[in-house]
């Protein structure tokens, strides 16, 4: 409101002084002129889901210290300007995230200085306003800053699906030996000989975690082996969804081996949702029931070492696997075999030798090779002073 009064007064004064031709000496000297912002543009913020207008400008060279920029907005045709923001000098951009999609706005930007008294003694001085073209916000189809990630994603899919396709058409792919996995049959065989059971812990997360899905695939193979050998299986769970998934996995494994008679629902059981109560119960079971083989495969946290050490003290063969770098050291220290990182994901393919899965392993390897190549080229180039590769991989 104040600025309206001030501008009206200013206009009247200017008009009056011009009309009367009064000598300028009768007025107090005008305050130093505030400059107008340069290159002021208002446009839809690119790469967003709408409801935001991006204002950009350049600070004019003659900007006095302490000046700020005042951005205002109006919906044409009615020019009711409302203040949107005060922006410090040097920022040169502002995102108005209060816009409504599809509504046309105009923005104006002007320099504002609170300390320079103006001619009428009203606080604050305001420079000339620059008004933007009409602009409306909308949602966008692309996010320019994620193009690199999108290209990487597409390349990955091409390599992966291409390899899977080749495998589907009969190309045979190789997979190298993975130490821990060769021990699976041996461990289950030993359990059968000793007449003790096999314990399978599928991590403590839900099947929404990818390591759990990988673990369930391995559980399928372990369950088929226990069905073949006729040894007992025990799979205690922390996550209720993993619990239902695991039960179906084991059930279908026993079916696939033609031994549904050996399957009992209690093989896959639920304990509790608490990580440590779970680990206490499983440790208790290890000590009391002395399973001959322990599989600890999936996503683990602190419980990893408690389980692995307790299992070790009971003399069981232990095969562990996780992709979480934080828990790997403990499995490596306390278990007989450990699937490290990516080995966990390759395990399903290794155990089943299914062509399609082997094809996917091949595709992943190709992606890895491509990354290594890009990396090496990038390093040489960076050493020579061209730093494009790291920038290319920068994500937002």
């Amino acid at each position, binding site marked *: 409101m104040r600025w309206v009064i001030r501008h009206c007064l200013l206009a009247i004064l200017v008009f009056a002084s011009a009309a009367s031709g009064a000598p300028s000496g009768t007025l107090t000297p005008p305050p130093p002129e505030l400059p107008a912002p340069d290159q002021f543009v208002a446009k839809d913020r690119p790469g967003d889901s709408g409801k935001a207008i991006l204002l950009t400008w350049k600070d004019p060279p003659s900007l006095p210290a302490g000046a700020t920029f005042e951005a205002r907005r109006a919906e044409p045709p009615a020019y009711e300007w409302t203040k949107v923001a005060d922006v410090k000098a040097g920022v040169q951009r502002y995102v108005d995230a209060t816009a409504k999609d599809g509504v046309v706005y105009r923005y104006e930007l002007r320099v504002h200085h609170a300390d320079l008294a103006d001619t009428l003694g009203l606080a604050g001085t305001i420079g000339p306003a620059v008004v933007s073209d009409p602009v409306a916000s909308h949602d966008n189809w*692309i*996010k320019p800053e994620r193009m690199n990630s*999108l290209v990487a994603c597409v390349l990955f899919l091409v390599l992966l699906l291409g390899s899977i396709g080749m495998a589907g058409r009969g190309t045979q792919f190789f997979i190298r030996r993975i130490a821990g996995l060769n021990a699976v049959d041996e461990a289950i065989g030993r359990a059968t000989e000793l007449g003790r059971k096999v314990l399978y812990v599928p991590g403590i997360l839900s099947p929404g975690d990818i390591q759990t899905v990988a673990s369930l695939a391995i559980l399928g193979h372990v369950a088929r082996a226990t069905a073949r050998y006729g040894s007992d299986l025990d799979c205690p769970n922390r996550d209720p969804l993993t619990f239902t998934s695991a039960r179906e996995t084991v059930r279908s494994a026993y079916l696939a081996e033609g031994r549904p008679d050996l399957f009992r629902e209690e093989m896959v*059981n639920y304990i509790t949702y*608490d990580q440590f109560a779970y680990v206490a119960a499983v440790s208790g079971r290890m000590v009391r029931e002395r399973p001959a083989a322990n599989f600890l495969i999936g996503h683990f946290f602190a419980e990893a070492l*408690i389980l692995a050490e307790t299992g070790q003290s009971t003399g069981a063969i232990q095969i562990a696997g996780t992709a979480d770098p934080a828990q790997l050291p403990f499995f490596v220290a306390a278990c007989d075999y450990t699937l490290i*990182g990516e080995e966990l994901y390759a395990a399903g393919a290794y155990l089943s030798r299914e062509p399609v899965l082997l094809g996917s392993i091949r595709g992943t390897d190709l992606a*890895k090779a491509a*990354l290594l190549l890009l990396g090496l080229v990038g390093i040489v180039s960076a050493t020579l002073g061209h730093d494009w590769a790291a920038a290319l991989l920068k994500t937002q």
Partner: protein
Amino acid sequence: MTGLHFDIGRVLLLVCFGIVPLVGIILGFFAPSLRRQLPLIVAFVAGIVPILSLYIPKAFLSAPGQGMSPRLDQYLIIVAGFALPLGVVNVIQLNTRKVGRGEKGWFFSLVLLIGLFVMGSFGVYGAFSGTGIGFLPNGAPTPFQWMTDWLFQPLQSTIFSLLAFFMASAAFRAFRARNVEATILLVAGVLVMAGRVPLFDLLAYPFPPLKPAAASLTQTMGHLTEWIMDGPNSAAQAGIIIGSALGAMAMAIRVILGIERSYLGLGKGD
């Protein structure tokens, strides 16, 4: 605004994850093969939503609160909340059977059931009575909170603290110079352990003249530890992260495409 909000995102969600499954279930009674195929198709849609949303900021996909991806986020928190009773039912089944038949260890099953029943009742009561499960307006704990503070949390922390002992026993066994790899493990482990704490200051504690030397040795070990953590350790971690992430991405695509389906109890031929 009155009336139901029908933006594109929600309508698509309703169709894909409400109507299609319902129709699929009805058809599934007549065509058993649909019982297997349709969930995989619906899963495919659910799986590509977040991926598309990463790259396509269109409002119907990605806008907070209304886009398909943020909305599905919201849904699945609820679905996960529905899952817990699946486990609770199993626990009650197993343990009542043990108690009922007087099997070995039935007493402990009884303890478990009492704990579950008491704590669970306080929780259900708190959630629905309006008193909540935390503190009463006068600052006193609800029974739920009291049991949390004096039963649940001490037990949790104590089980967790067992790790201190197991770290020691695992280190004693694993850190032996059996072969090159084990020796590297041993040396790196011992160097870092020595560099993390003022170990030499402790050793020099009874010998005051050695204290300055010990302090400088601690300093050096600290730097060495930092270098190991920052240099080789960090490099290897990056290798594990990149490798695992690629493996996980391939696995994710296999799940989304329905190639990997053992989590549903579906075998290869299904």
